[in-house]
């Protein structure tokens, strides 16, 4: 069992700011870097209507390199890889189809079937046996911390893996350069 308790999880203020919001939360939690949404939007090439999902994260590499942070990405990962990342205090960002939330039994949200075409960032923050805990900024009403009992989205592992397949099990994550070699060798993550 692994669980990463997020501090200050945020709800996206606009429908098209999900990626910048998720990046903001990852930056402040994992590498203690606090940046405004406006700055992150600029970094990842945000335009009205959202970002280009993969290239937005690669674009972070340049501004983050000044802070000695590298963006990693890799496909064909497994849940074991995610567990290893979380155990090292690393938060993976993955893309799910927006209507995955309909699988969670949530009553707060209802997303129609066209949501299969809209990819949305989520962060798996915990995995235990057959259950995956997810931070999703599309949900609102977060408190100061996201403890296990306050997580708004949990998915059964098979459902999680089925959704993840739609992006070939790809994940993005940040590493501090001083620890990069160790993480690179262990995960064979590729830096684009």
């Amino acid at each position, binding site marked *: 069992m692994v669980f990463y308790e997020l501090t200050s999880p945020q709800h996206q203020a*606009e*429908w*098209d700011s*999900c*990626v910048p919001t998720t990046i903001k939360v990852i930056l402040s939690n994992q590498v203690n870097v606090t940046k405004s949404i406006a700055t992150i939007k600029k970094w990842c090439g945000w*335009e009205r*209507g*959202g*970002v*280009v*999902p*993969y*290239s937005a994260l690669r674009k972070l590499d340049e501004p983050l390199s000044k802070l000695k942070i590298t963006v990693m990405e890799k496909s064909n990962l497994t849940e074991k890889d995610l567990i290893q990342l979380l155990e090292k205090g690393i938060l993976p960002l993955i*893309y799910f189809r*927006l209507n995955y939330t309909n699988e969670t039994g949530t*009553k*707060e*949200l*209802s*997303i*129609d079937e*066209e*949501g299969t*075409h*809209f*990819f*949305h960032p989520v962060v798996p923050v915990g995995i235990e046996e057959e259950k995956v805990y997810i931070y999703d900024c599309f949900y609102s009403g977060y408190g100061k911390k996201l403890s296990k009992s306050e997580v708004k989205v949990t998915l059964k592992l098979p459902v999680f893996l089925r959704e993840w*397949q*739609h*992006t*070939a099990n790809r994940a993005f994550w940040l590493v501090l350069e001083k620890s990069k070699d160790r993480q690179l060798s262990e995960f064979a993550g590729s830096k684009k």
Partner: protein
Amino acid sequence: MSQVELEFQSRVMEQYPQGVYFDSVNSGDSNKSVILNSVVPTIIFDDKNNKRMVKFIKLNNLGKMIIDRDHKFIFETKPTVIRSRIDEHLVEIQTKTEQIVLAVIFDKLAKIAMVRTTLNPVYNILKAVYEKKLTKESLLNYPKREKYLRYIQFLCDLEILREQKERYSEGNYFIQIEKALNNKDEEEILNRVFGLTIKEGKTYLLNNLNINVLKPFIRIANIYYSSSALFENILFIKKENLYNNYLKAYGLNTKFVNFESYLDQLSRAKILNEDGLVHGDKTILEKVSDLMKKSSASPSMC
């Protein structure tokens, strides 16, 4: 997903904004291609039940990608082209839904004090014509003659007035309304003609006579009713949520206090109701939904 589908999928996510997708891979002799479409989320609030619903505006045939037998991408519509096509479609849809909402609420809109005051010259002209007092000679004594002549020309172009040798009289539409409201009083007839003037002349009023006072009322009503039409029910929305949707949809920075004032006047005109939560009128919603189905206009970005 097949290997080639995953290749296209991955490329789409590297090149195009969120929401761009393809339905299926078309196989040619040696190449394979996909047609690019897009979905744009529309978030609808149901604050009475504390629920958010997401529906999607679908935009088809925005571009294309082709891959050759060596799995090399040999054609891709430029991402900037895709973005501008999405924007164009969304503006087109917003304009269409505005026209539909306006067609339903025009007579109520005419009762809003701010609209009535700004367009008072139009109302005065209609009244003078109805009372057979608008002669060309009398116009010579009007203090703002040029302005009045522009309004009169505009009303003649809409066939609400008709120019005669020595005076102006009711045009075809004015006469039809008089006939339809045979037993009604003067004020009701004039209100109906005035509303029709706003409905038929909206574009001209906004573009040529610079009557911006109409815009916020039409836009707020559009934001509310296009959402409700998509939901197929009367929505109960927090004022703040409606305000944020209004700003976002139209790229505005209107102050909340001004928005509240517009909402208050829409409420007095019985276009929207406001009692803690904002909610609409069932008859208006039915007419809007009906017209949207007939015109195949997808609701606006809300």
